């Protein structure tokens, strides 16, 4: 059974959507329980919903700009709400990030003093980790949770450089945010590993600083190692350390779902995908989720 009291039942494993994923899931004979689909993709191409017919959907999102100063448009929030209803997603995963920023602060105003449209980065960026952002993120979280009437999960964004005006680490920020609001987490293990490599900390030790009991969903994907640091990579299999991290999170956490994100290459090997799924299943068998 996939759903249990409004949550996904224990130990479900899913795949992030790509055009080949629905057929792979149908042919996988129970190896995969659900597909994670971005709201932005459904909004742009609603036929993706039909292509996933018969497969439970978990909705993901990169539009709310929880960590930003510019509120998401009412129209977009309404559309997210609609897709939550249509997909019957048990929760909404959103990034702890900003995707838009106020343009007037760069001195750009339209004639007659009207503020210009905000900068739209089109990609989620981890915000400065300080008290100001913390309060703003908590307020945004409460506000969107109420409006959407669904459990909202916040995902840690990867850190590629030290953000100025940050006064706390990401784990401190997340822990305090969980105290300020009833936040549940989507822990992206690749993001955490990337941040550790780029900023310079031990990812296993950092796990101990996070409120693992708040983690409901986990993301796993690849990591691109470049001379200047580590980068997110959904086109290659995850390094082995991510499965050690998964095991550790599963020991203490209440994780309901693990999503493999291999959706950046339509040619991703089905054999490798099956191996990665088996590795997750193996880990889940070793450390059953009992919460």
């Amino acid at each position, binding site marked *: 059974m996939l759903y249990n009291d409004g949550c996904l039942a224990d130990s479900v494993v899913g795949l992030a959507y790509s055009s080949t994923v629905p057929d792979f899931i149908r042919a996988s004979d129970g190896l995969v329980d659900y597909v994670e689909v971005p709201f932005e993709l459904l909004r742009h191409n609603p036929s993706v919903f039909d292509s996933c017919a018969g497969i439970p959907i978990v909705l993901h999102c990169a539009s709310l700009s929880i960590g930003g*100063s510019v509120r998401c448009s009412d129209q977009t929030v309404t559309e997210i709400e609609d897709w939550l209803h249509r997909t019957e997603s048990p929760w909404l995963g959103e990034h702890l990030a900003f995707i838009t920023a*106020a343009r007037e602060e760069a001195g750009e105003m339209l004639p007659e003093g009207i503020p210009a449209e905000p900068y739209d980065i*089109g990609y989620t960026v981890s915000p400065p980790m300080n008290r100001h952002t913390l309060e703003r993120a908590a307020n945004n979280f409460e506000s969107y949770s109420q409006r959407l009437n669904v459990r909202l999960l916040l995902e840690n964004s990867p850190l590629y450089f030290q953000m100025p005006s940050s006064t706390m680490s990401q784990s401190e920020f997340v822990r305090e945010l969980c105290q300020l609001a009833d936040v549940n987490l989507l822990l992206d293990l690749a993001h955490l590993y990337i941040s550790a490599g780029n900023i310079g900390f031990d990812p296993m030790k950092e796990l101990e600083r996070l409120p693992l009991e708040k983690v409901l969903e986990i993301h796993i994907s690849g990591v691109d190692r470049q001379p200047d*640091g580590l980068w997110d990579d959904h086109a290659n299999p995850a390094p082995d350390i991510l499965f050690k991290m998964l095991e550790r999170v599963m020991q203490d956490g209440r994780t309901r779902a693990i999503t493999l994100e291999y959706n950046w290459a339509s040619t991703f090997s089905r054999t490798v995908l099956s191996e990665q799924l088996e590795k997750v299943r193996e880990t889940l068998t070793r450390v059953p989720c009992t919460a």
Partner: protein
Amino acid sequence: MPQAVETIIARCLIEPGFLGKPRAANESLAQADFGPADLEKIRRFAGFICKVKHNHLWGLFPATRRLICHYGIELDIFTKYRLEHDPRAFNAGIESVDDRLISFINFLDAHFSSHGSSYPYPMLLEVLRHERFIWETRLVPIAPAVQPMSSDDLQASRWIDFQRLVVGLDPSLRLFGFHYDVQSIAAQLEEANLEDEIPRGSERVLAYYFDRHSDAVRVVEVDPITTQLLSLINGKRSVRRVIFASRVLGLGHARPVEFREFFEDAHRFGLIKLSPERM
């Protein structure tokens, strides 16, 4: 201050002109307490976002992508491309996917070409061009302007009538010379088994054309004589004039009737069309 940081970062990430002017960008970043080295990191991050936003375009160029990844230079390429490409049109839904693809492929072609023989990855340009020809060949309008003769009618025609036929290239046909065996490289990349040393050889010409019967792009190697003959065909010349021109250009030892087999074979393969009318 935190909002100002976000605004500056956002501007760096979406305005190519801003990132391309280190002084202006550095001054803004300095206001937000960024160090001088951070501009390069933000530039790379902008390249990374650009890379992610182009993931869906690689479906038509799988070997090119695999080769770029094999060399570990995907992020480098997108960081350079990002300085030219303005993401705002796409973010606003103004730029179409096709426009995006054309812009990106043109950039790659120019980028791989610009280094000349000093480029450490010479196979990239040829693999890109190979996949580009396949893609472009598929885009050519399918119906020929003039209905070509059937192969049976062609074989039955007398030599004197045959020579009066007008010969035109299939509208989808493209010819290009390669120094690497691009078909073999693409196959090796697909099997994740690329040889360590791939030698540069003498030029081989490949012909790309759309086979309407199988609804697929065909790629065949053509010999130098075929290449020369095809280069003389323009949709206006008759068979006789093409034969005359090729004999003048070095094939004088061959009797005119010996060329008939070439025209019939090329017609059967779909490389050329023969018709009583101009095309």
